[in-house]
């Protein structure tokens, strides 16, 4: 399968600050790749290097098999992008801003403007000056500009940032449709794991300029910590029974018994049988997965070890 984005040991240094270091990424055609990191992790710097807006201090970038050079015209006819906060010319209307974007992509037919206005739900704002748009609609306009010329690759920096829940779902469905029906590749950055976990096939986690982990949606599910929580009238006695059967447990402050061993998490029915056979009647047996945010923070080494009790 062709690689849509390929970086090799990509790095960017600003004076004494190493913004991105040794970043090697491969994004396949037709996939949604999420680039996850906290604010200041190096996401936007990477996207700008992918777009040839910033010259890397080390390494190389290929986008759609084309080596990216500063100020080059290639391969941007096939790339749509939205970097950071979407801006537009405030004195122009939504339609005029899209017309400007159309003329910046020669060969895009005039009817593309109406098509994208409809697709992003901007029809009723078409003749409104963009200086008067809400943040959500400004974001839609940013996405409309990125989609206008039907690109093969979309580079989106925090595409759902500032959208209401309905808007987030809408954009998610739009991106899924683009990849499934038209084979468009999407490379999106985000700082919200929960948002990208529903969308991306692969997730790259960047922290302090380094790609610290790449994982698939399945890996994400597998890697998140799970625990079995039991509620029982006689907590102490149940705890003793579990300990006697080699099941390491912990009594939490909220009265639940917590078990983290793989056998307990994977076969909660066995634990339940064990307690029932010993004369207990567990009132609740819950498998709880680590929250995505907590998992993400654990990945980047921030407060990930403490669990809510």
């Amino acid at each position: 399968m062709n690689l849509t984005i390929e970086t090799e040991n990509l790095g960017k240094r600003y004076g004494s600050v190493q913004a991105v270091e040794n970043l090697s990424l491969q994004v396949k055609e037709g996939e949604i790749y999420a680039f996850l990191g906290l604010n200041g992790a190096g996401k936007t710097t990477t996207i700008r290097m992918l777009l040839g807006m910033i010259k890397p201090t080390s390494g190389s970038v290929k986008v759609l098999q084309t080596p990216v050079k500063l100020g080059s015209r290639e391969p941007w006819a096939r790339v749509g992008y939205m970097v950071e906060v979407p801006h537009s010319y405030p004195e122009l209307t939504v339609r005029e801003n899209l017309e400007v974007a159309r003329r910046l992509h020669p060969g895009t037919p005039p009817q593309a403007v109406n098509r994208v206005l409809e697709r992003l739900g901007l029809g009723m704002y078409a003749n409104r000056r963009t200086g008067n748009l809400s943040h959500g609609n400004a974001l839609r306009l940013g996405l409309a500009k990125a989609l206008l010329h039907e690109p093969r690759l979309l580079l989106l920096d925090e595409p759902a940032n500032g959208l209401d829940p309905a808007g987030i779902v809408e954009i998610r469905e739009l991106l899924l449709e683009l990849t499934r029906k038209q084979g468009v590749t999407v490379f999106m950055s985000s700082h919200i794991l929960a948002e990208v976990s529903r969308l991306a096939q692969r997730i790259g986690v960047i922290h302090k300029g380094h790609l610290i982990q790449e994982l698939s949606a399945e890996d994400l599910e597998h890697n998140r910590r799970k625990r079995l929580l039991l509620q029982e009238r006689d907590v102490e006695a149940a705890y003793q029974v579990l300990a006697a059967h080699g099941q390491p447990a912990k009594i939490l402050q909220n009265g639940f018994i917590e078990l983290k061993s793989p056998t307990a998490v994977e076969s909660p029915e066995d634990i339940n049988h064990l307690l029932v056979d010993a004369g207990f009647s567990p009132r609740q047996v819950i498998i709880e997965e680590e929250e995505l945010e907590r998992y993400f923070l654990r990945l980047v080494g921030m407060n990930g070890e403490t669990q809510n009790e």
Partner: protein
Amino acid sequence: MNNFSNMVWVESRKAIRSRMPLWTAIGSLFMPFGIAFLMYVSKNQEIAHKLGLISAKADLVAYAADDWQAYLGLFGQLIAAGGFILYVLAVSWVFGREFADGTVKDILAVPVRRASILAAKFLITGIWSAGLALIIFVVGLALGAAIHLPGGSASVILQGSLLVLATAGLVIVVVIPFAFFASLGRGYLLPVGMAILALMMANLVAVAGWGEYFPWAVPGLLAQGKSSLTLASYAVVMLTGLAGMVATYLWWKYADQSR
């Protein structure tokens, strides 16, 4: 060529819809109307008496421009100084607004040559500036006729008019580097600051006797009809414009765009 005409459409649409050309045109009208008003005051002692201090200034202007030749020379100097500031505002807006409004990132990774985008910006700036010069000039001519200036032979008016337009042409060329300052400073502050500095330096250098080799002093010297200007003076102006264009292009093509 098709891309270039598209870029010209884009730049002209942005400029027109912003109404900035309109505001600068209104600003430019203050120059001929201000001069005509002072000359009118000077010629009418009754009004001059009521206005006090203004009448003294009016007398100065009337003394400096008591016939068509001097009047048109004064307009040349106005364009060299006031026009220069207006042109700097125009060029700063055309280039600096992309950074001030955060829209620059949308014109960087596009399949249109950076040179086409910049050429369209320079063309629009040039047309805008030339338009302002024409407004100042035509209104000035009309007001000069209205206040019945003496010495208005066809050759004097033609020669004076050519001087005004040539001065405007030189000013349009020497403001080109301010496109680079607007890009480098990512907004309006640096070019406006540099314009004030250039005007101050132009005065100082002219007083020191080196004005004919200082690009921002040359238009003013031309407007004053100084014979010290040589071919080298015009070459310095042209080289300054060319250097401004090349620096702007290189900056847009090779500078990191991290904001």
